[in-house]
């Protein structure tokens, strides 16, 4: 395959010497960025590297302190997102920025509705919207409400919208973070199509596989500084990761032995779920976890993995099945039931369902034990000792218990959440995507900690979109697809390709 864009073609976007500072932080320090027509360009970096800041400078969300932005050769000063859109730069955000209360067609055309005699011509709105959607290979009822459609479709509607604006530059900020594989494929088809038509596309993602699949060129940032710009095909994966984190990536290899550890499965399991399900959410599934075991749940987003653990924890109510805890039947209709039986659950959505942002780190850590204890306050000395013990054990940074938890980075928030649960001395810890959106270094810390805890006898259910991670940690893997459990594997007998193949194909041939 020949790259449409080579270094010779003139860039459509030239950002030079971009510097942006926030109180106490230099978010971007003299960064250059060039984007050429007909290329997919990934901006890579750990959390805090300055990716989002750079994109927000380009889309007019942030004003730049110094430097210059040229689009198609014209110098631009973006004071707002309007300015950027007017210059032909359109953005599709991670949290899809559309109105679910309006129709698909209206979402595509909103703000650009064709008018006839001073009034919106609704027929033309839906006709044009359908044309734009057809152009991307999507065929849906444009008069139906957007809320009736999946996230993936909504994403494509958002891209159609960008096309209506006649964007020369399309910025996709973490577009795949909540898509399943088929949906990612559909999105990539659209991206390739747009690239072939000469659009310049910025693709930001945490998923290395996807970056290598779609990106022609990669710009790497670290700590607000430019590391370099590379052609994706010339940059081996290990080298990219090294450039992103600035150190060799051997940390992750050290824990690969965990998965091979033998588990004693003779006693009654810590948790045994039989036929647990909920209509429209999850087909009845079985799962058991033994003492000191790490059970991974693999499957794509929407496969039912989160739904399953939420039912096990009592966060949502199951309408079928039974749960036994160490051999005794247990009713799980509220998180408190689970907590009383020493089961802990850390949700995939840290910000909305985990951290209590305005409370301090210390208050967040003791929240779990305090909730168990009821209204009798934990003694100050007890609180201090618990907090310092777990902050040290998990290496929460900065090590300031009085800091407001919302100001911590994502990885450290995750550590605080795990600290909260470990402080309650659980026997089973359910971790749903604990490493999502976390930089590689912290990710390794967390994995090592999980492995260590399980060796000390803690049972863990571990969910992750990164299959390598599941394979590395779990002794047993439950695979889910389409809201049902499709099988259980011994992780020692599978490698990554085998697991992917199982997720994609198991049971397909024989069924139907």
């Amino acid at each position, binding site marked *: 395959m020949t790259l449409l864009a080579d270094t010779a073609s003139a860039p459509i976007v030239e950002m030079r010497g971009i510097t942006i*500072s926030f109180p106490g932080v*230099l978010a971007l320090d003299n960064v250059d960025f060039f984007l050429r027509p007909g290329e997919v360009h990934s901006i890579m970096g750990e959390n*805090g590297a300055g990716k989002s800041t750079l994109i927000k400078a380009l889309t007019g969300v942030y004003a730049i302190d110094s430097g210059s932005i040229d689009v198609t050769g014209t110098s631009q000063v973006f004071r707002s997102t309007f300015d950027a859109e007017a210059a032909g730069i359109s953005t599709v955000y991670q949290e899809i920025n559309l109105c679910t209360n309006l129709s698909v067609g209206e979402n595509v055309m909103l703000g650009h509705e064709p008018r006839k005699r001073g009034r919106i011509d609704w027929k033309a709105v839906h006709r044009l919207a359908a044309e734009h959607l057809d152009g991307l290979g999507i065929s849906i009822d444009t008069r139906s409400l957007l809320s009736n459609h999946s996230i993936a479709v909504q994403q494509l509607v958002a891209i159609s919208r960008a096309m209506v604006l006649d964007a020369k530059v399309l910025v996709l900020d973490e577009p795949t973070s909540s898509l399943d594989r088929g949906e990612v494929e559909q999105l990539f088809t659209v991206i390739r199509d747009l690239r072939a038509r000469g659009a310049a596309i910025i693709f930001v993602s945490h998923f290395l596989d996807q970056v290598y699949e779609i990106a022609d060129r990669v710009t790497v940032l670290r700590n607000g500084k430019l590391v370099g710009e590379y052609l994706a095909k010339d940059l081996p994966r290990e080298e990219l990761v090294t450039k992103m984190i600035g150190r060799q990536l051997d940390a992750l290899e050290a824990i690969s032995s965990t998965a091979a550890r033998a588990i004693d499965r003779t006693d009654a399991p810590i948790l045994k779920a039989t036929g647990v399900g909920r209509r429209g959410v999850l087909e009845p599934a079985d799962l058991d976890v033994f003492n000191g075991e790490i059970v991974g749940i693999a499957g794509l987003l929407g496969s039912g993995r989160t739904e399953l653990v939420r039912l096990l924890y009592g966060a949502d109510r199951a309408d079928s099945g039974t749960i036994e805890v160490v051999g005794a039947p247990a009713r799980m209709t509220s998180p408190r039931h689970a907590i009383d039986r020493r089961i802990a659950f850390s949700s995939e959505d840290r910000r*909305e369902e*985990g951290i*209590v942002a305005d409370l301090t780190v210390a208050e967040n850590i003791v929240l779990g034990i*305090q*909730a168990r204890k009821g209204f009798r306050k934990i003694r100050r000395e007890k609180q201090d000792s618990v907090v310092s013990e777990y902050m040290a054990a998990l290496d929460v940074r900065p090590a300031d218990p009085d800091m407001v938890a919302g100001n911590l980075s994502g990885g450290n928030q995750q550590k605080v959440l795990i600290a909260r649960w470990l402080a309650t001395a659980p026997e089973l810890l359910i971790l749903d995507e604990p490493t999502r959106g976390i930089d590689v270094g912290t990710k390794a810390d967390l994995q090592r900690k999980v492995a260590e805890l399980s060796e000390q006898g803690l049972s863990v259910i571990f969910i992750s979109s990164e299959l390598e991670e599941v394979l590395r940690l779990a002794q047993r893997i439950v695979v889910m697809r389409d809201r049902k459990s499709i099988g259980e594997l011994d992780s020692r007998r599978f490698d990554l390709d085998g697991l992917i193949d199982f997720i994609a194909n198991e049971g397909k041939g024989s069924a139907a």
Partner: protein
Amino acid sequence: MRSVTKHRLFWPVATLVSLILINTVARSQFASITVRDGRLYGALIDILRQSAPLMLVSLGMTIVIATRGIDLSVGAVMAVSGAVALTIIDGSTDPSDPGVVMVAVVVAILASLLLGAWNGFLVSLLGIQPIIATLVLMLAGRGVALLITEGFITTVNSTPFEFISTGYLLLPFAFFIWVAAVAVVGLTERRTALGVLTEAVGINPEASRLAGVRSRGIIWSAYAASGVLAGIAGIIYASNIKAADANAAGQFIELYAILAVVLGGTSLMGGKFSLAGTVVGVLIIQTLESTMLFLGVPSAESPVFFAIVVVVVVIIQSPRLHRLARDVTNAARSRRTAEPSDAEVAG
């Protein structure tokens, strides 16, 4: 010095102190307190007495706001409570019997508790938006109060009942009521974990639920407490005018209470709350009211001034203004001192 101005009670207290100073300068007798018959009198004492109903309502409002809620029904609850109490006293053979008054007060408070629990039920169990849930009672509550008094303004002559608002034990009895209420609420919230759990629920309800916090119970109890406190306020109000006036009792008090809470530095977004701040906020409002009376402003016109106060306060508290101020101060020094840091601002 900087840490003093940073304290979240600094601005409320500074406002209150300067209001008192301005009043004292304008009329020297404002700050003077005289002793007659073993009782203290003076403008400041009046403020302490008159602030009782608003203080009680605002205390409840603070707790409800901390849970991310709001209670619009407090005025209606006051009306119901006053109507219940006066109807019982009026219907008894001896309105001056302390026992009758006691029964009337207890029944009125129980009725208020019921109304508060109803609000709590709508919000915590049915999951209805608090503004709307309490709007229902705000609309219907006064209708209920009117039905209880059969559409009339019930008046009574009962010395023990009047004592509640006008009685004296060196200081006005009503003052002791609100001090006791502040103490009870303050100790319950801060000496137990209820306060921090309430804040957790207010900041992030779902995270709190998953952490095992009994958020439903906490939210429910906040509305119940607000109902009880409004009920007591309604009794004090009725005792003061010796009548149950279903239309006038507690009119606009929800607005003043919200203003007091905001003046005290508690955010309407829920979460962190300050009872001390609310106390100061109520005193500011009452002092302003007294100032306007002194200036000869008809009390009906005073909302104009409170509107200005609300506007000024919300603008001062506005994050937008803070950002602006920060940008201005930073612009001066940022270029020189900014250092790369691994802290993440916008990644």
